[in-house]
């Protein structure tokens, strides 16, 4: 996937609607509130004192060079790092005011509320239908056949995939193209109706057309979800996000409205990075 060209540079600029509601940003409510969070792999500290807020119905982008900790940080927000032995978190992360690392938190329920889409699409080797229904079934959210079918269709529509697959939902998901598979994974995440959607470089393995469709989808989904996206691609961050956080060597260097990060960053490091002087 590394030999895929940095596609987004070939794309025409996105329609300006992305920026239209920027002025409303300050009024939005805080969904995810992280205070002084540090993360350790064994003795090695991978994140150091991160504090930031992601707002409801906004897209927050994490950018930074490889190994800067942006993906690790994303994965602390649904406690996906818990499954790696020897990891440890300090500080606090709250979603809707609730500390997700409190001892009484049900991690399974947390992960249902905080959906995740991965860098490489990872459909299960089942039919398109069963992929989307998986989360409904394991969480027993809906049980009747008709309700499951309804939710599957609704989710596939939300992920802008329904029209392409409606005649073959019982075919294998692995027969879909890469971009379709990634949208299927988004549909699968949406089916369990999460509040927050985490996306870990969701378009980095896709061609420019498929990337554009994912970006359009992100823009449409933010009216219903709080979206946090990790991206290697600065144009993508500029196009889809309302806020951008720049990470460097496990630290949060700067966090601001996306417009400011790309036009008038306060930190020299941020400016160097977004203008392509390193990284």
């Amino acid at each position, binding site marked *: 996937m590394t030999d895929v060209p940095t596609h987004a540079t070939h794309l025409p600029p996105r329609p300006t609607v992305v920026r239209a509601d920027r002025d409303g940003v300050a009024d939005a409510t805080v969904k995810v509130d992280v205070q002084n969070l540090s993360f350790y792999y064994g003795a090695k500290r991978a994140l150091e004192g991160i504090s930031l807020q992601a707002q409801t119905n906004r897209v927050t982008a994490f950018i930074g060079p490889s190994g800067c900790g942006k993906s690790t940080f994303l994965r602390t927000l*649904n406690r*996906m790092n818990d*499954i790696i*032995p020897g990891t440890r978190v300090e500080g606090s992360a709250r979603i809707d005011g609730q500390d997700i690392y409190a001892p009484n938190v049900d991690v*399974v*329920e947390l*992960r*249902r509320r905080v*959906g*995740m889409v*991965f860098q*490489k699409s*990872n*459909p*299960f*080797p*089942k039919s398109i239908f069963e992929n989307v229904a*998986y*989360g409904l079934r*394991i*969480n027993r959210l809906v049980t009747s056949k008709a309700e499951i079918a309804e939710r599957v269709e609704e989710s596939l529509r939300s992920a802008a995939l329904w029209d392409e697959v409606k005649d073959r939902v019982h*075919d*294998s*998901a*692995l*027969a879909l193209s890469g971009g379709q598979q990634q949208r299927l*994974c988004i549909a*699968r*995440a949406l089916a*369990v109706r999460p509040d927050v959607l985490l996306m870990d470089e969701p378009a980095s393995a896709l061609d420019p057309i498929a990337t554009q469709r994912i970006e359009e989808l992100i823009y449409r989904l933010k009216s219903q979800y709080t979206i946090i996206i990790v991206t290697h691609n600065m144009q993508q961050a500029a196009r889809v996000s309302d806020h951008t956080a720049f990470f460097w060597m496990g630290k949060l260097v700067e966090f601001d409205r996306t417009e400011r990060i790309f036009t008038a960053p306060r930190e020299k490091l941020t400016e160097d990075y977004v203008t392509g002087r390193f990284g």
Partner: protein
Amino acid sequence: MRARSQDLGFRLTTGAFAAALAAIVIGVGVALVSQSWLTIQKFGLGFWSTSTWDPVAGDFGALPFIWGTLYSSILALLIATPIALGIAVFISELCPARLRTPLVFLTELLAAIPSIVYGLWGIFVLVPAVRSLQTHVPDALRALPIFAGPPLGVGMLSAALILAIMVVPFTSSVAREVLKSVPVTQREGAYALGATRFEAIRAAMYFARTGIVGAVMLGFGRALGETMAVTMVIGNNPQVSASLFAPQYTMAAVIANEFTEAADALYLNALVEIGLVLFAITLVVNGLSRLLIWSMARGARGPRRKPAGAAA
């Protein structure tokens, strides 16, 4: 020019080695047929379906041995598969890192024990245990055909148990490797949708299902051909019986036991034909498991991909 002839030579040499594989399989089959020609002519297909085994009268039928081999192997498979998969899942998914290496070492050690040693252990430990188990079977159950018969200890259950013990390390090793090869993104995908650990492991096992079937089939193939340990505990009595406690016989066991005593040509041919039957059944079992794996792989990939992709 030099490079091209070298390439050609290389292709021919390695190709010849590959062709040797096919030649060996065919050669074994041809040799078995020619060495058992007498009984093939005399008994025809009846050899497969009759139960008489009378070397003195020169009357031979392989059914009790086919029955004994399939019964003991399938029973062993039923016992061994859940245990082997449980071990594989525990080692690859659940066990603390410190325990992993010793456990892997232990399974490999179990696989390395010679079957005659398992047989000795079977005679001195397993057979008495089965005997005492049988004396504790309630009378109501003894009326059932599968529990019928006197408490001898040697018999089908002892054979199946010892086979199961021998098969477990193989199946669990392969299943463990297969589970290890499941991409971590599959488990994470399940976790991200609110899966419990059990559900995430189930998702990984579903992803690996063709490989797991392969692991089980490998164990089955081993059970079919296992000779020494089974011979020592199965009781060596050619009869078709449903009873777990009845002494029975397997194809491999009868060849091992009677080959040196087969004085006349017909008797010898009958034993070789049993070898031929075992060979054929092994081929069929392997072929069927291949087919099963292919069809599962193709189903997972969807009809739009070419079969060449599905076979990879």
